[in-house]
C-alpha cells in the first residue's frame, strides 16, 4: 500500500532547491516562488491531515483553527509582548497540542465520526474568538506589524529565503512522517485502519494512536500558522474560517489520502489553482472546486497520487 522510496524524495528535494532559480529565468512565472511559499505552508498542514484521514480514518473540520491558533499565538506574543518569534512558534505548538488533546481525546475515544463534529464546532468557536476578542486579536481588521523571521541574526528578508525556510520545514515534516509510517507506529496505524477489533486484540491501544496522530497533525498546522504570520506580517480571521478547513480536505481528496505524496500534490495544485489559474473565474471558483472534487472522486478515487499505479496496471495488462 505504501512504499516511499528514496528516489522520488531526492527528485522532490532537487525540484525545491532549483525552483526559485528556474522561476527567476522566466519572467511570466517569477511570482510563482511567492505562491510556492503558500503552497508549502498548506503542504505542512495537509501532510499531517492526510495521516489522520488516510491512516487513522478520521476527518477533521477544524484544522483551520489549529492553523489560526499557531498564527495568532505568534502574532500576539511578538506584537504585544515583543517575544522572540521562534520562541512564539514553540509556544504556539505547545498551546495547539494542548487544545488538540482537549478537543480530540473525548471524541476519539468513541467509535465513529465524532471527531468531525467536535472539530466542526471547535473551528467555529475559534473563528468567533478571533473575530470578537478585539483587544487581543484586533478583531475582523486583523493584526499588522508581525515581525519577520531571522536565523542567528541572518534576516529572512526575501521571498526566496522564506521559500527555502518553509520548504525546509515541509521536507522535514515529510521525512519525519514517512519514517513514522514505515515504523512500528505506522504498522499499528495501518492495522487500525484494516480492523480495529483485531488491532486491539493484538495490544494496540486504538484511541491512543488516533489521539497521537490528531495532535501531531494539529501541531503541524500550528507551525504552518506561525510561518504564515511571519511571512505575511499580518493576520486576520477570515484566513482561518470553515471554508479553509474544507479546502484542506479538498487538497487531500484531490491528491489522494492513502499516500503521503497526495498531500503534497493536492496542496500544491489547489494553491496554484486558487492563487493563479482560477483567478479568471473570480467568485465562481467554488463551482470549479466542486467540479474537480466530483470528477476526482468518480474517476480517481485514489486521487492524483494513484495515477502512476493506474498507468502501471494499464501497461501490464
Amino acid at each position: 500500500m505504501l512504499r516511499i522510496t528514496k528516489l522520488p524524495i531526492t527528485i522532490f528535494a532537487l525540484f525545491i532547491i532549483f525552483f526559485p532559480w528556474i522561476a527567476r529565468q522566466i519572467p511570466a512565472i517569477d511570482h510563482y516562488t511567492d505562491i510556492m511559499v503558500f503552497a508549502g505552508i498548506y503542504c505542512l498542514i495537509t501532510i499531517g491531515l492526510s495521516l489522520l484521514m488516510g491512516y487513522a480514518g478520521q476527518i477533521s473540520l477544524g484544522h483551520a483553527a489549529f492553523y489560526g491558533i499557531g498564527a495568532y499565538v505568534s502574532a500576539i506574543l511578538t506584537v504585544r509582548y515583543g517575544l522572540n518569534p521562534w520562541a512564539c512558534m514553540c509556544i504556539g505548538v505547545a498551546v495547539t497540542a494542548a487544545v488538540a488533546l482537549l478537543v480530540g481525546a473525548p471524541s476519539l475515544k468513541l467509535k465513529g465520526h465524532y471527531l468531525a463534529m467536535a472539530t466542526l464546532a471547535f473551528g467555529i468557536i475559534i473563528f468567533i474568538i478571533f473575530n470578537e476578542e478585539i483587544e487581543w486579536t484586533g478583531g475582523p481588521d486583523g493584526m499588522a506589524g508581525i515581525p519577520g523571521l531571522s536565523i542567528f541574526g541572518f534576516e529572512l528578508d526575501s521571498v526566496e529565503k522564506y521559500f527555502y525556510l518553509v520548504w525546509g520545514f515541509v521536507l522535514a515534516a515529510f521525512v519525519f512522517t514517512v519514517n513514522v509510517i514505515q515504523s512500528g507506529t505506522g504498522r499499528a496505524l495501518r492495522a487500525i485502519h484494516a480492523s480495529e477489533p483485531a488491532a486491539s486484540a493484538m495490544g494496540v491501544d486504538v484511541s491512543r494512536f488516533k489521539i497521537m496522530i490528531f495532535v501531531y497533525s494539529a501541531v503541524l498546522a500550528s507551525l504552518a500558522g506561525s510561518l504564515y504570520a511571519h511571512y505575511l506580517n499580518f493576520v486576520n480571521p477570515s484566513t482561518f474560517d470553515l471554508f479553509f478547513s474544507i479546502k484542506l480536505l479538498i487538497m487531500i481528496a484531490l491528491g489522494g489520502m492513502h499516500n503521503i505524496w497526495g498531500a503534497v500534490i493536492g496542496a500544491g495544485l489547489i494553491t496554484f489553482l486558487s492563487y493563479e489559474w482560477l483567478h479568471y473565474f473570480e467568485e465562481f471558483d467554488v463551482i470549479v472546486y466542486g467540479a474537480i472534487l466530483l470528477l476526482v472522486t468518480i474517476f480517481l478515487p485514489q486521487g492524483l497520487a494513484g495515477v502512476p499505479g493506474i498507468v502501471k496496471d494499464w501497461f501490464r495488462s
Partner: protein
Amino acid sequence: MDTVREENVLEVQKLVMTFGGLMALSNLNFQVKKGSIKAIIGPNGAGKTTLFNIITGSFPPTEGTVKFKDRSIQHLKAHKIADRGISRTFQTVELFGNMTVLENVMLGCHTRVRTSFMASGFVLPQSRRKEKRIRESALKILKFIGLTDKFKDSADSLPLGEQKLLEIGRALASEPELICLDEPAAGLNETETHVASSLIKAINAKGITVLLVEHDMKVVMNISDEIVVLNYGQKIAEGPPEDIRNNSRVIEAYLGAEA
C-alpha cells in the same frame, strides 16, 4: 511439578451477560488449567463467542469475574488484556488484509516491543534495532506455522486455510500465556483441518495454554484435555472428551430430547 500443572491460568466465576432482555450467559463457572487445551462447545447461540469476547475484553460482562493468573481482568480493555498475555483469533478471519503476511505477524509483536512516535519519526538507532528484532522473531513464527515462503504476499491473497494459520501465527507473536482460538477449523477442508490441529498441539507443547471454541467434533475430541459444553448460556457438562461423548444431557442438547 504436579502443583504447577494443577494451577489455573484462567478462572471464570459467576459470569452473567445480558443483551437487553436476552440472557447470553448465566452464572457460568469454569477454570482452565495451565498448560492444558480446553474446548468450549455447544449448539449455535449457546454463548461461546460472547464468552470469548468477554475474556478478551471486547466488552465487559454484566456480572461476574474473569481472573487471569489470579487477577481480575473483566474490566480491562482489549489491548490491556493482550498486554497481560492473552491472545486471540477470530471466528471470521480478521487479518490486516492491506498488509503482507510478515507485517501481520510483526504487528503481533506489538505487545512486546514498542517504539515511541518520536523515536520512529527520527529513526533513532534504538527504533531500528527494535524493528530488526521484531522482524527476526516474526520470521521464526512464520517458519513455525509453515508460511515462510509466502512472507511477502498480501494477507488477502492467501487461501482461507492459510489465513487461519496466519491468524494463529499473529496471535503467537505476542508470546501469550493463553491463546483463545475461535473456531480454528471452521471452513477448512480435511487436510487443512489436520494441519490446524497439529499446529494447535504444537503450540500447546510449547507450554501455551489453549482455549478454543470449535464445531468440528473430531478436532475437539482429538486435541482437547477438557471440554465445557454450553447450551443457552449455561454450562451443561464439563469433563474429559470420553465423558462428554457419552453424556446424555449433551446428546440431548445437540440432537433434541428424543435422542
